């Protein structure tokens, strides 16, 4: 009984470390394969389309609504203190620092990450990847690296769009419907938000999230058991693991970036 339990613990721990090791090796291969993408920009462009352009709509619409909700809730709370004018600061700071990078990364994991895992998992299940190896085409260079780069490029752009659209949405609700002064909305925001501390840190966050999410999505697909059930499990794992890593990393990054303020 005890022995079995210990065996269970041991094998689980060991297999998760083995998986982490494989994931790291996979990441290193992907990074070293990235250089070979630049001579063939078409590969990258195709992936930018399916990873970035197709996520554009969900990101902007979600950003708009998140900003509008922030405007509404912020107004209710701030008007208790007669501080409606600082609505712009509240909306912009929460979007640029936290919600922009985090929510767009979660949406990105759901929209683009799961698609990447399913695509690569199916390629593996239908033996397209082995077929490429047979033809002396490196699937890492040909399939994985362009997708990785596309995710890395798209994520900061999508997060910036999310924040920008959200701030406009907050302004729409705040000064359009609830009567906060438009000049105060913008000027308070500009006075309080710092380029270095807020905007750049938000962009750094989104780059980190893009890196991690795309890595997880590609690795889960590449590492999936090549059956229909295996691919479906890998897709689930992508979304779950991405969400955990995004939220966990967000805490660490926030503690590092906004520590002494």
């Amino acid at each position, binding site marked *: 009984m005890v022995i079995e339990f210990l065996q269970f613990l041991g094998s689980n721990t060991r297999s998760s470390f083995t998986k982490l090791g494989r994931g790291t090796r996979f990441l290193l291969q992907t990074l070293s394969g990235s250089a070979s993408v630049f001579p063939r920009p078409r590969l990258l462009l195709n992936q930018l389309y399916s990873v970035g352009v197709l996520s554009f709509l969900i990101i902007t619409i979600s950003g708009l609504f998140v900003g509008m909700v922030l405007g509404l809730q912020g107004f209710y709370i701030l008007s208790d203190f007669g501080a409606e004018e600082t609505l712009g600061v509240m909306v912009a700071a929460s979007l640029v620092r936290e919600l922009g990078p985090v929510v767009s990364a979660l949406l990105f994991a759901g929209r683009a990450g799961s698609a990447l895992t399913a695509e690569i998992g199916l390629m593996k299940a239908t033996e397209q990847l082995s077929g490429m190896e047979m033809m002396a085409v490196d699937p890492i260079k040909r399939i994985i690296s362009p997708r990785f780069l596309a995710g890395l490029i798209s994520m900061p752009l999508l997060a910036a769009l999310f924040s*920008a659209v959200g701030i406009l949405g907050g302004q729409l609700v705040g000064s359009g419907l609830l009567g906060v002064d438009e000049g105060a909305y913008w000027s308070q925001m500009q006075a309080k938000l710092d380029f270095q501390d807020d905007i750049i840190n938000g962009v750094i966050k989104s780059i980190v999230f893009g890196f991690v999410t795309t890595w997880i999505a590609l690795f889960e697909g590449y590492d999936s058991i090549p059956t229909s059930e295996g691919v479906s499990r890998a897709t689930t794992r992508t979304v779950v693991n991405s969400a955990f890593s995004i939220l966990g990393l967000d805490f660490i990054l926030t503690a590092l970036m906004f520590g002494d303020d």
Partner: protein
Amino acid sequence: MKNAHTQDTLVGLFVAAGIAGLFFLALQVSNLSSFTDHESYTVTARFQNSGGLKVKSPVSAAGVKIGQVVSISFDPKNFESVVNMSIDSKYNSLPDDTTASIFTAGLLGEQYVSLEPGGSEEYLRNGGKIEITQPAIILEKAIGQFLFKSAEEKK
């Protein structure tokens, strides 16, 4: 999948929109446009009490923001608060007998340094010292004194 040309256009639009979003955040949302690294000079003022003053608190003269607080430290010899301020070089004609006071913007607002120019012919230079200062008004202290006084009067 769409044909290659439309796809390129869409990718181009996407990247352009993303970069436009970044520019919007940088210029419209943050203070990048108002702080394009103006030349500035530093002056020091010693306060008995700098209250809730923070690094980056505004420094203003006649209600106009002309600089910001760079650092605040405690001088263990004189038990004073040493406040370093950087002031925009455009405003290099502040007399050296300028008074620095710490005020609060509104009842609950943030604290700022207000400079009131004196009548001297000499100007404050980089590294200059403001000799005449007025400490921050601590609301609790003021209320305490007021209560104490009114209690005394009743006796």
